[in-house]
């Protein structure tokens, strides 16, 4: 069992508090019409942050679904900067700069799991050390891609860490309508790989589970499926009203097990956290977020960025369309 050091636990909590603070601000910005749809982080912090802290950012890849970016600060400030561009609908939001090993958000559920297997497989072929850690939800585990990718990962013995973030809800669909299986971790048996169920509100437990899966993968022992059991404390997104379907008593019980409060209280007891640390972290989180939003708003965007990066070189058709687009714009502005 690998327990994160005090210093690591403190860094993990800084990232968790940062993510929650920024998520709350983004929610408000969305309500003010300043950013697009937001998927709140509340309840997911320990799982995502601790998993990221168990990785070697230089070699290990993170393949997210869509809720993770605010909690991936460990991979660099560019993650937040690009995520804000993404939230505002700027195309550069999908370009996380080289050499950061994080893929952009994936909206099509579960489709990123095959990508993770391909990356892991590719690293083995190129004799590169490293693992591919892929996040997906309880709902995504019902997609065919989960089964095809898990199966291929097992057959190839690929260094993949599959993290099923079970937050109990796929928008309004509860887990018992998602699967008849006892647990999502049990599905690993069908792939012939280990399945581990972990308390996803316990940062140290998640860290340990990912660390062990990573070490197995690097030792050539193949993939692991980790189910991190948490509870979605907020809405699915800003477009969702969970009061329509989340039983209030369940939510109240989950709030008592809030991962941020849990780690905060632990670290306070250990003398690793206090009001000043909390305040300093929140202030910095908001500064970073506001600056990222401001930068994203003022990022330049040329009209024909619409057509850039479709192909390496414009086809005849795209070249025609590019001149038509520019011509139409210059006529409009004349």
């Amino acid at each position: 069992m690998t327990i994160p050091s005090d210093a690591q636990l403190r860094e993990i909590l800084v990232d968790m508090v940062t993510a929650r603070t920024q998520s709350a601000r983004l929610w408000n910005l969305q309500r003010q019409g300043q950013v697009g749809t937001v998927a709140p982080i509340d309840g997911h912090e320990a799982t995502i942050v601790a998993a990221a802290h168990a990785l070697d950012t230089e070699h290990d890849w993170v393949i997210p679904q869509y809720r993770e970016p605010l909690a991936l600060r460990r991979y660099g400030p560019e993650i937040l900067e690009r995520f804000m561009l993404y939230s505002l609908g700027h195309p550069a939001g999908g370009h996380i700069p080289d050499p950061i090993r994080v893929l952009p958000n994936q909206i099509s559920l579960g489709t990123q799991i095959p990508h993770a297997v391909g990356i892991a497989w590719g690293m083995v072929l190129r004799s590169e050390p490293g693992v591919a850690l892929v996040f997906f939800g309880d709902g995504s585990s019902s997609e065919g891609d989960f089964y095809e990718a898990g199966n291929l990962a097992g057959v190839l013995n690929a260094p993949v860490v599959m993290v099923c973030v079970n937050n109990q809800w796929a928008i309004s669909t509860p887990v018992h309508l998602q699967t008849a299986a006892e647990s999502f971790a049990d599905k690993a048996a069908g792939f012939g790989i280990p399945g581990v169920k972990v308390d996803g509100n316990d940062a140290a437990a998640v860290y340990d589970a990912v660390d062990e899966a990573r070490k197995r993968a690097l030792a050539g022992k193949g993939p692991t499926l980790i189910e991190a059991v948490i509870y979605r404390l907020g809405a699915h997104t800003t477009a969702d009203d969970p009061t329509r379907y989340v039983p209030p008593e369940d939510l109240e019980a989950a709030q008592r097990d809030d991962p941020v409060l849990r780690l905060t209280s632990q670290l306070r007891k250990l003398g690793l956290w206090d009001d000043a640390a909390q305040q300093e972290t929140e202030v910095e989180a908001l500064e970073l977020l506001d600056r990222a939003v401001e930068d994203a708003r003022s990022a330049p965007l040329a009209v024909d960025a619409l057509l850039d990066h479709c192909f390496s070189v414009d086809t005849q058709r795209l070249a025609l369309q590019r001149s038509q687009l520019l011509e139409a714009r210059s006529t409009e502005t004349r």
Partner: protein
Amino acid sequence: MADPFESDGVTELTMLQAINETLHAEMARDDRVVVLGEDVARNGGVFRATEGLYEKFGEHRVVDTPISEAVIAGATVGLAIAGLVPVAEIQFLGFSYQAMHQLAGQVARLRYRTQGRYEPSITIRAPFGGGVRTPELHSDSLEAQFANVAGLKVVMPATASDAKGLLASSIRDPDPVLFLEPLRGYRGIRGDVPDNDHLVPLGVARTAREGDDIVIITWSYQVELACRAADSLRSEGLSVRVLDLRSIVPLDIGAITEAVSHCGRAVVVQESCETGGFASEVIATINDGCFWSLEAPVARVSGYDVPYPVGMLEDLYVPDEARIIAAVRRTLESG
């Protein structure tokens, strides 16, 4: 003195042999090239297109996958991100429906959605097309569905030489390519293939027959039938040009416009259903580029708007020489 490696020698090969030879050459040339798919390694592919690769390049570069079209396509995204050059096989194009969300939703948009961070050097090979009495879902001509997917190139060779030159270009191309191989052409098309490195650029059409009275525009195996039709009509004194598009994305708009402007009459031939087939796109391209040079409405020869039929009905469905000739005569007589 002549350099033996620079010889302009040719060898007569079937399209299948040309494809196999090219895969060998590209794997030897670039160790980032990996081949994956169902039955591609130990069995050498169900048509033997990948024969000998496993023996020569080993189990790490030539990989038999589970029967999982979605993850075959999806893994190519990850392999490309990791810096490899995947050449995946979908055993029959009809099975690509099970990979459509990865091909259209992911492979095709990797460059665009990451704004060029990742180079999707991905080739997906798949046989398709009629004439060999396959079971259901093996013969469907789905190219128009993929041409409608932005970011994906769709390459469809008609000759053995082009199969080599276009496949080599596709594998070396930094964009994702769907490389479609006509089932009837595997052993039914043969021709001289250059021995040396041979590249045919993507997006440059080929004049398969010279002619002035009318042009037949088509791609893949239908080029063979169009050429037979042109040769047969030539004996009656009709001068029929055949334009082989070679790839429908990128489309050689200039070559279409030039040929139609010159001839004034055109017939577009495709194996797929009529509605929404790629012929419609070619005709719209003609309208955009050279409508006023037309002397008659452009004709279409297509399959019918039904699912690809079972074997005993196949010959009624797939365009043949007679239907092409009839369309040419109709177009020459009208206007």
